[in-house]
């Protein structure tokens, strides 16, 4: 009984450590490769089914304008997204009673321009939208935005420890929610109350709903999808401009924009390296939101129970040297099973736990770190045994 108690205590500690790790935006170098591989397999072989939401991708890469640029070192002109065009589009949405589902406008508004007042004026009429906020790496403070309604700004940065984008931080204690989290809170699920997440050390909590603070996004939309479905802002404005009469205009609005999520961003130049190649930042934010929406990376009581049972069993066998090897190899004489349990038994068992957790609960466990931990336990015991024999 005492042995089981000790094993279950170890399992609880492991779960807490696991939750801490899932909450941080750090990805262990060994894990990053595994996650990349899993992402590639999932994206290219299992093709995550596209969400039912109607999503419109609007590319601003062709809508460049110019503005004056001034800082302590440089001054001159700089290219920015044409805010007059954005304002015209937002006004169009507002004129049709904001019947869109949501607007994710992933355009940086940190440089002032002559069109800012027009943009702010059109934004004052728009509802259900989010705009990006960025943090100055030197001062650790948010960069000044030209947008008046700062309540609509959410973080659109990611922190990486390698070179690729792999994890999306959902909330930062000092700077608030990120765009995917804001969208998840703002877009209510049918017949459900909207979520209001609070930060805690073990994740983000809203009632009985808990999610880790950083997630590995699934790639529902890839660059190929974007290439097929994107439309340029100029094209949209031209299309709107050519439609004459209220009835025709309403018809166009209802068929395209009504009830849809509108993702606006520069899909040509704002690209980030990911496990499946270079993708625009807007797509990463949208995929992160869709991952949350599809209940991936959500802590559930069943997941915790599953971890508890698995970790208790593994801890028990590791602590008491009754490793799975003996049982499995005696039951099944298959060479592969024998090999797996003989050579890398812990890795194999933890990989099974990880795959089951991913398939059933949608959370990618950290098998390699756990393997190292259990190896340390086993190895540590051997070291003590060795010292005891040597000195006594």
């Amino acid at each position: 009984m005492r042995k089981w108690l000790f094993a279950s205590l170890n399992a609880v500690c492991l779960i807490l450590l696991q939750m801490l790790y899932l909450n941080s935006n750090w990805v262990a170098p060994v894990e990053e490769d595994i996650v990349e591989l899993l992402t590639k397999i999932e994206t290219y072989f299992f093709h995550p089914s596209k969400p039912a939401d109607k999503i419109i991708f609007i590319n601003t890469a062709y809508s460049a304008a110019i503005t004056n640029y001034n800082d302590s070192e440089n001054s001159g002109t700089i290219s920015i997204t044409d805010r007059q065009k954005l304002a015209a589009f937002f006004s169009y949405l507002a004129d049709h009673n904001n019947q869109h589902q949501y607007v994710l406008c992933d355009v940086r508004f940190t440089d002032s321009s002559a069109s800012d007042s027009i943009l702010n004026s059109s934004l004052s009429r728009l509802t259900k939208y989010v705009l990006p906020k960025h943090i100055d790496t030197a001062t650790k403070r948010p960069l000044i935005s030209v947008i008046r309604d700062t309540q609509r700004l959410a973080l659109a940065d990611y922190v990486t420890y390698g070179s690729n984008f792999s994890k999306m931080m959902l909330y930062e204690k000092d700077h608030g929610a990120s765009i995917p989290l804001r969208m998840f809170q703002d877009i209510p699920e049918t017949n459900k109350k909207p979520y209001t997440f609070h930060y805690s050390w073990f994740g983000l909590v809203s009632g009985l709903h808990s999610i880790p603070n950083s997630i590995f996004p699934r790639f529902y939309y890839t660059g190929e999808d974007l290439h097929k479905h994107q439309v340029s802002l100029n094209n949209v404005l031209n299309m709107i401009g050519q439609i004459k009469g209220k009835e025709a205009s309403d018809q166009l609005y209802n068929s395209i924009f009504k009830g849809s999520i509108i993702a606006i961003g520069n899909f040509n130049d704002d690209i980030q390296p990911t496990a499946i190649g270079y993708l625009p930042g807007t797509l990463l934010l949208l995929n992160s939101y869709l991952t949350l929406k599809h209940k991936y990376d959500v802590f559930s009581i069943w997941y915790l129970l599953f971890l508890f049972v698995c970790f208790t069993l593994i801890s028990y066998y590791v602590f008491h040297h009754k490793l799975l090897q003996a049982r499995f190899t005696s039951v099944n004489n298959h060479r592969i099973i024998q090999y797996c349990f003989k050579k890398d038994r812990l890795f194999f068992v933890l990989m099974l736990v990880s795959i089951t957790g991913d398939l059933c609960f949608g959370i990618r466990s950290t098998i390699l770190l756990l393997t190292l931990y259990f190896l340390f336990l086993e190895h540590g015991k051997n070291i003590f045994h060795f010292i005891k024999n040597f000195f006594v």
Partner: protein
Amino acid sequence: MRIILFFSIVLTATTLNAQTKAVYYVTSVIGNVTRSDKHALAIGDTVMDVNKITVYDNAVINLFNADSGSMQLHSKNTSHSESLLTELCDLFKAKSSRISLSSRGDCDGGTFDDCLKIDTSINANLLMIDSLLFPQPINSNNNTQTTSTFFLQWKCNGKIINKIVACNNGHICIKPCDLVCDSINYNNSYGDITLGAIKSSQQGKGYEKLGSFQICCTTTAFINQYYLSLQQLMKDKSAKEIFSRFYTELYVFYGRPDLCNLKNIVHYTD
């Protein structure tokens, strides 16, 4: 797993060991560079451990190793604590960097001209600056019974678009309205066009290829955008000068523009 772990530890240890035990010859020294025992280094000296030499402010030392070649050290890259910390950070990837997921609207090219891209997705407004005229080929058979209908075949982003083109006063004319691609994915400003003739006679129909060429297309939206940008960039210049520069730029990019057409697009009057 253990084997992998073992080899990774061995590999790391070997790399670090190899780095420290290699023999380096001092090929040049500028400024004050000393060993750990404070002895100054001079040309011809040997160094066993590069981490144990101190390079003071503004000093530079060049070292040579038979296997790894030359290396240069200066005060910045010999700070022991910094290099060790950097190595550890690199090993565990513990050094983070914050990257923005939004675009301000600028691009890799840097200059504003680089950021102005041709919006090729607006095909309804695809603009060919000028009409193209080709002399109608003389009927080689001198057969007056044969009638010719001319067509163009345009490869538009993988799609092939066939269009009958008008022939007036002995000239085949390709007008801007002939080049409309309904694919929103059209991303090539250079269109491959093949001009051909359908020859109908009493014997039947036949096709003849007259030639192929490339054209450079742009959009009215791009033209407007470009003109507006030039106006902003050349604030101190007169409207005439701006339009003149605009005309020249388009000439360079797309060939001779139709002046009247261009003035209408940007609403310019002399």
